[in-house]
């Protein structure tokens, strides 16, 4: 009914002590600003690391582990049933390292509604050859375009696009470490020796750079067909199948199901990268803990200043009450002041946070590990700005509420008699 006059009184109180009001607002500004910067940067970093590991790693990897048959022939014999059989020096079964029935299995998996994509890999041992020098290495055959669609293959290549490899049957994306050792450049040919003794000369279309020096010194990428030829095998020779799901949370379920249904080895991403989640959640905890601490400090600033204002304004409060303002009116006057401080400080904080985040996102950040990233990763999610505003309002409301309640309880008679 008369909130207008209450707001006006609150505004006058704030404007007559501009300096203190400004300092109180700045407290909120820094709290919110820091929150925005921290959370944008931290989640940006998380996103980058997710991209680095999670997006590049298959949610389920299907492979064939070479191991001894758990059921040895003696176990099947009636004669030795029930006795303790001791066999020494068991050898693994002589078999190929390829996944059995890979092509039909992939065809079936591709139809599964939970699965976003399935892509094969063929791993072949090779030697890079330069004159009489032989370097140990690994050529991995991939379905280039699918690999890029599902696992961001593009992020590992320097100097080329995935399609350059896909369009060149005899092309190779050479490990950058190998290229350095052999002084090879894009457009050159690299000579390789397969484990069957055949020689291949492939054209270098780009370099592979994962950031892991040991890997870059060994690994190169070719098309699936080429890898199968290097391995001297047919087109059903596939050593790994990478599966990407729509929902990463289903990875464990899916890997168990695949392993049971097809009798193959399957490992899910969570099991393979258990340490990863911990890092993400710890970064989140730090972000929120630091921001909340800053906001609480800002809240104390507001609390302090309002307490001071109320102490100075005892007479005014008594007059207001004597002339018909109720306790709740007085409470509103001071809560409005806190909210003004919170809103102004909070808005400036959002602005400050946004500007600083933008500056960070433009700062150069070069790393071997991710050749495609040139600046710091920053996540400009509007949700953070919403959370920041809500934080600012809640803290300032509580910081204002206690002094305001005290003001509403002031007995005008005490003040008037005290004169």
């Amino acid at each position, binding site marked *: *009914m*008369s909130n*207008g*006059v209450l707001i*006006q009184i609150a505004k*006058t*109180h704030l404007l*007559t002590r501009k300096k203190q009001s400004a300092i109180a607002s700045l407290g909120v500004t820094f709290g919110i600003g820091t929150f925005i910067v921290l959370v944008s940067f931290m989640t940006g970093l998380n996103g980058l690391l997710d991209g680095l590991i999670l997006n590049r790693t298959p949610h389920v990897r299907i492979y064939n582990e070479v191991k001894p048959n758990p059921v040895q022939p003696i176990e099947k014999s009636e004669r030795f049933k029930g006795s303790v059989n001791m066999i020494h020096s068991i050898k693994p079964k002589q078999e190929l390292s390829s996944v059995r029935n890979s092509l039909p299995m992939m065809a079936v998996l591709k139809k599964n509604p939970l699965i976003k994509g399935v892509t094969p890999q063929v791993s072949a041992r090779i030697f890079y050859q330069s004159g009489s020098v032989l370097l140990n290495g690994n050529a991995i055959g991939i379905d280039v375009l699918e690999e890029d669609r599902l696992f961001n293959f593009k992020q590992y290549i320097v100097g080329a696009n995935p399609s350059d490899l896909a369009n060149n049957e005899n092309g190779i994306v050479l490990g950058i470490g190998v290229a350095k050792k052999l002084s090879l450049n894009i457009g050159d040919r690299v000579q390789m020796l397969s484990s069957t003794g055949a020689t291949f000369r492939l054209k270098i279309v780009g370099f592979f750079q994962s950031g892991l020096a040991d890997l870059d010194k060994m690994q190169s990428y070719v098309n699936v067909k080429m890898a199968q030829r290097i391995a001297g095998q047919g087109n059903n020779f596939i050593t790994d199948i990478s599966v990407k799901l729509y929902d990463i949370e289903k990875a464990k379920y899916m890997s168990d199901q695949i392993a049971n249904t097809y009798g193959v080895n399957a490992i899910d991403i969570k099991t393979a990268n258990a340490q990863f989640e911990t890092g993400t959640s710890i970064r989140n905890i730090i972000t929120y803990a630091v921001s909340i601490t800053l906001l609480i400090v800002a809240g104390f600033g507001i609390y302090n200043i309002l307490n001071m204002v109320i102490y100075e304004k005892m*007479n*005014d409060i*008594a*007059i*207001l*009450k*004597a*002339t*018909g*303002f*109720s*306790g*709740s*009116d007085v409470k509103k006057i001071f809560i409005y002041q806190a909210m003004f401080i919170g809103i102004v400080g909070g808005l400036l904080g959002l602005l400050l946070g946004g500007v600083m985040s933008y500056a960070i996102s433009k700062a150069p950040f070069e790393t071997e590990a991710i050749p495609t990233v040139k600046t710091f990763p920053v996540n400009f999610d509007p949700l953070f700005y919403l959370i920041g505003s809500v934080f600012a309002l809640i803290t300032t409301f509580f910081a204002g509420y206690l002094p305001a309640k005290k003001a509403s309880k002031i*007995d*005008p*008679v005490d003040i*008037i*008699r005290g*004169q």
Partner: protein
Amino acid sequence: MAYAESTSTQNNHILRTVEVQKSFVDPVEVEVLKNINIWVDKGEFVSIMGKSGCGKSTLLYILSTMDTNYKGQLFLADRLLTGLSGNELAVVRNEQIGFVFQFHYLLPEFSVLHNVMMPGLKLGKKSREEVEFDAMKQLRLLGVDDQATKKATQISGGQKQRVAIARALINEPKIIMGDEPTGNLDSRNADIVFDIFKELSSELGTSLLVVTHDADFAKRTDRIIEMADGRVIS
């Protein structure tokens, strides 16, 4: 209670107390108001006199509804105010009671005009423009309209007192109470204030209840309530 009901109908009392009693515990219990039964009629100008410390201010705080910690009953225009909530009493004070303090109590950060407007804006029955118009009218009545735009801290004591009276008048209250409203004024200004009060009671029918030490001032009012030692003696 029976007494209150039997006497509440037959008169035109604006303000009435029934057996009001007040004690302070500081550190032993002292009774400062004893069996106060007073009334003020519509349009009546009443003064309260008595020695320093006899309880005049204490009584006035109770009558103005600011002090609710008393025994007995308080009626304003036949409505029992005793026992109402703080918010309800604030509305009563805002609408029906004007209070003038001994010390000119103005809000220092606001202009003179704004100080006068404040209770009117709180009441919220009129538009801002109407309240401003009324406030200017009151300031003119009290001869301080030329000070309207100044800050409340930039005018003299006598002017402040008149501004405080203008503020008490803004909502056209049923009764105006004053605790030595002329105590800080020279005789010329005191006379001005007295004349204004007199005019209010005779022309607008506003009731007045004013504590004063000034016997000349009291003599010119309609009725004097004498107090001594927490009692009404005449």
